[in-house]
């Protein structure tokens, strides 16, 4: 009995030493937590310029000690032909080992995006530290490192701030969505093309690196979410802006909430409708070699502001507004599709939809889907509903008192 027990104990200990998956203990203060990675193309040679935004813990969190005047992050740049090479090389510049499990942001400079991004995501799938839900942004009109160097107001960590910005605008405005590495890899490996959010620097990028930029009510530099970059064959070919990018979200059924301004009978775009529910159903069909996109959008919104004096207690007034809302939505969707068709880039997953639902039809067109897609026709149906008019039904100035 005793020997058996001892034997079991020895077995447990032996197995436990052999099976240790994550065995290496690392103290927290030996880690340099990387919050964001930036990748840029080198002008003359092969490889990348990789920028790491490293969190400086002593100045980015409330501590009991004296407040540090150092910026919350430091940025390290290294050049190499591979990302991993660059990150190992970075050890020459950092006091601690780079730790990637909390990397939330990947920024790709526009020049690199234009030359192709297909291959740079490999390390995200291969490494156990990097996460596949890392948000990806394209630095519009600039390189990635300048974006990573910008300090942000409100959020102490710029990378976290940019991720939150993406999520926030996606939730309430709807021109962008949070696009992660996983989604992009899906886009690369499946039929069709994909989009990535753009981020644009406003103001003086040089000043934005300094902490003094934040010591005023309006920072000297900042960034804003700017449209969607259209990728075809892994290369950035154009940008979708404003209504086009919102139309794209609509077609992808990714719209959460947005605001649509619609025309009242007397004035233009003066009634604000908050869309709080939207669902898009897509069916793709081939008719005489040409694809037909059957899109059905059902949206629900409530009126949040009405500059015109519309009496919402009247059914026909609301009916008009519903029609107006549907038209407005339809026009944005059409703009998005038109923009994509011009570039022959199927960013709406229509190719996948056709492949999934009509595999035998897909075989006839998959060779030249790009050009086939560009000739596709839209069969759009929008059902718009207005579910509420806020706390007031009639305008506060009655019709007879107005001139």
């Amino acid at each position, binding site marked *: 009995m005793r020997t058996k027990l001892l034997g079991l104990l020895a077995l447990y200990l032996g197995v*436990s030493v052999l*099976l240790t998956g994550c065995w290496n203990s690392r*103290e*927290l*203060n030996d880690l340099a*937590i990387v919050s964001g990675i930036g990748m840029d193309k080198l002008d003359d040679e092969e490889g990348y310029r990789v920028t790491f935004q490293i969190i400086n*813990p002593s*100045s980015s969190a409330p501590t009991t000690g004296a407040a540090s005047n150092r910026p919350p992050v430091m940025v390290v740049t290294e050049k190499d032909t591979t990302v991993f090479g660059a990150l190992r090389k970075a050890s020459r510049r950092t006091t601690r080992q780079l730790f990637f499990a909390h990397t939330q942001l990947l920024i790709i400079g526009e020049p690199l995006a234009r030359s192709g991004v297909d291959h740079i995501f490999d390390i995200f799938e291969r490494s156990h530290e990097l996460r596949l839900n890392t948000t990806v942004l394209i630095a519009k009109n600039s390189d990635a490192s300048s974006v990573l160097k910008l300090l942000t107001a409100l959020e102490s960590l710029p990378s976290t701030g940019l991720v939150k910005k993406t999520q926030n605008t996606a939730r309430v405005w709807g021109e962008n969505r949070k696009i992660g590495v996983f989604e992009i890899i899906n886009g690369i490996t499946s039929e069709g093309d994909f989009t990535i959010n753009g981020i644009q620097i406003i103001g003086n990028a040089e000043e934005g690196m300094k902490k003094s930029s934040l010591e005023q009510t309006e920072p000297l530099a900042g960034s804003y979410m700017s449209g969607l970059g259209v990728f075809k064959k892994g290369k950035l070919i154009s940008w979708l802006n404003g209504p086009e990018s919102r139309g794209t979200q609509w077609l992808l059924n990714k719209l959460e909430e947005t605001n649509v301004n619609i025309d009242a009978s007397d004035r233009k775009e003066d009634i604000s409708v908050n869309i709080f529910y939207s669902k898009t159903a897509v069916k793709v069909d081939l008719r005489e070699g040409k694809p037909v996109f059957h899109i059905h959008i059902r949206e629900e919104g409530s009126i949040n502001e009405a500059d015109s004096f519309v009496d919402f207690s009247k059914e026909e007034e609301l009916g008009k507004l519903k029609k107006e809302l549907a038209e407005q939505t339809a026009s944005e969707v059409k703009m998005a599709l038109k923009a994509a068709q011009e570039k022959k880039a199927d960013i709406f997953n229509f190719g996948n939809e056709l492949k999934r639902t009509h595999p035998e039809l897909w075989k006839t067109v998959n060779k030249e889907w790009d050009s086939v897609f560009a000739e596709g026709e839209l069969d759009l149906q929008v059902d718009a509903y207005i579910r509420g008019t806020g706390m007031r039904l009639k305008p506060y100035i009655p019709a007879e008192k107005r001139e």
Partner: protein
Amino acid sequence: MPKQTKESKTAEMANGKEQSPPIFENIEENLNQIQSKLGNSPDLIIRYYESLDHANYAAAVYINGLIDMERVEDYITHALSFDSLQEKAESAATALERFSFAKGKALSIGKEKIVEDQNSLLEGLLSGDTMILFQGLTKAISVSTSGGEGRAVTEATTQVNIRGPKDSFTESLSTNLSLVRKRIKNPNLWIETLTIGAVTKTDVSIVHIHGLANEAMLQEFRKKLSEIHVDSILESGYIEQLIEENKYSPFPTIFNTERPDSVAGNLLEGRIALFVDGTPFVLITPATFFMFFHTVEDYYQRYDVSSLIRLLRFMCLIVSLFGPAIFVAALNFHQEMIPTPLLINLASQREGVPFPVVIEVLLLEVTFEIIREAGIRMPSPIGQTVSIIGGLVLGQAAVQAGIVSPAMVIVVSLTGISSFATPAFNMALSIRLLRFVITFVSAYMGLYGIAIVGLILIAHLCSLRSLGVPYMSPVAPFAAGDQKDIFLRAPLHFMKIRRRLLNPKSSVPGTTTQIRKDNPHEN
């Protein structure tokens, strides 16, 4: 009757002698014998009583301090005042008649018996009896007059409650038994008394409810007690350690309590209680793991409140067992599982702390244990000072000195407080001990190590038995019907069925039928 043979056997064994010399006819000889055997101890009191005609005389012998003086005086005036007999029997009073007269009077006092050998004489003296010896007779009257100094019944100090009876056991065995008797007014409450300890001759009482307690279990328990051969039993803890089945397990398999209501409740569940003279702590066996997390108050409060508090206690068990270990594992091995803002926060707190996380944990844990131990041992005015200094050391000062991080203070203090949420102190101690082991393993192997130790612990717990009952019952082996009173406490009207794993005997005579009728396991 097996019970009596058992008792007499044990008594014989405790005496350690086969034959004991009879009492001499000469009273002086007897008294000399007693005095020499007790080493001429000054607390041995001998009082002589002579009849008026000088024909007879008797002596009352007792040990001062062990007896209730009032009762002795009372008895002696009644039984040994030969003068009051004068009118009735002038000359006829022979020694034998005096003896039976005194014996008759003894009945008014309470328990009395006749002893005929010297050993019983001494034994009786030492347990507080008063001995009446008569000139010319080879027997003596032993009157139960034990009493003396004792503590009054006060509020429990180790198991405090808000709602419920406030009395608790004292050091006196008879008081303790009566406290339980008062709660269970039933002839089936059976008490067996035996003596353990070759030198101390400590009285212990096995208490059970006949018909509810399992007979085989009882037999086993008696056997275990009879196998104890030690010189001294100074506290029930001695017996607890001597009869434990799993001597090398960190977990206690015998429950102890100083609350009479807790004992009564457990007796009614079919358990066996062991009262030891001289201690307010009563042992209860068989004990299961979950017993240590239940309090009597759970049953006095409403079921919803009790259930939530019980869940809280189990949560505290997890925290106090794994708290620091999980913290160490997360910080050293699994940084990716901490939310980013929290990780940055923790990283900033650890800036400037010179020690690895494990050392930090140990520093604080050991400090905490020192303060706890010192606080208990110190007299209460100094105890407060200890806790103030401890608060300073554990709190802000250690952080400001840059020795530990603020988050660590939170983890350790939360763990410490959680360990106090376990109602049974001995279980809390075991958990505290295991916490150190688990912390070490987690510093070596991370969450993986915690999982290994956790599994070993569970396996070990499931392998334990207390008097034949699986320690983890009724969770492992699982008994669906008994889950009503484990993690949650069902409303009382749902709990009419007795716990099956304790195997209460199916039929019970007499007055306990009220509960029995609802028991479907009867038939």
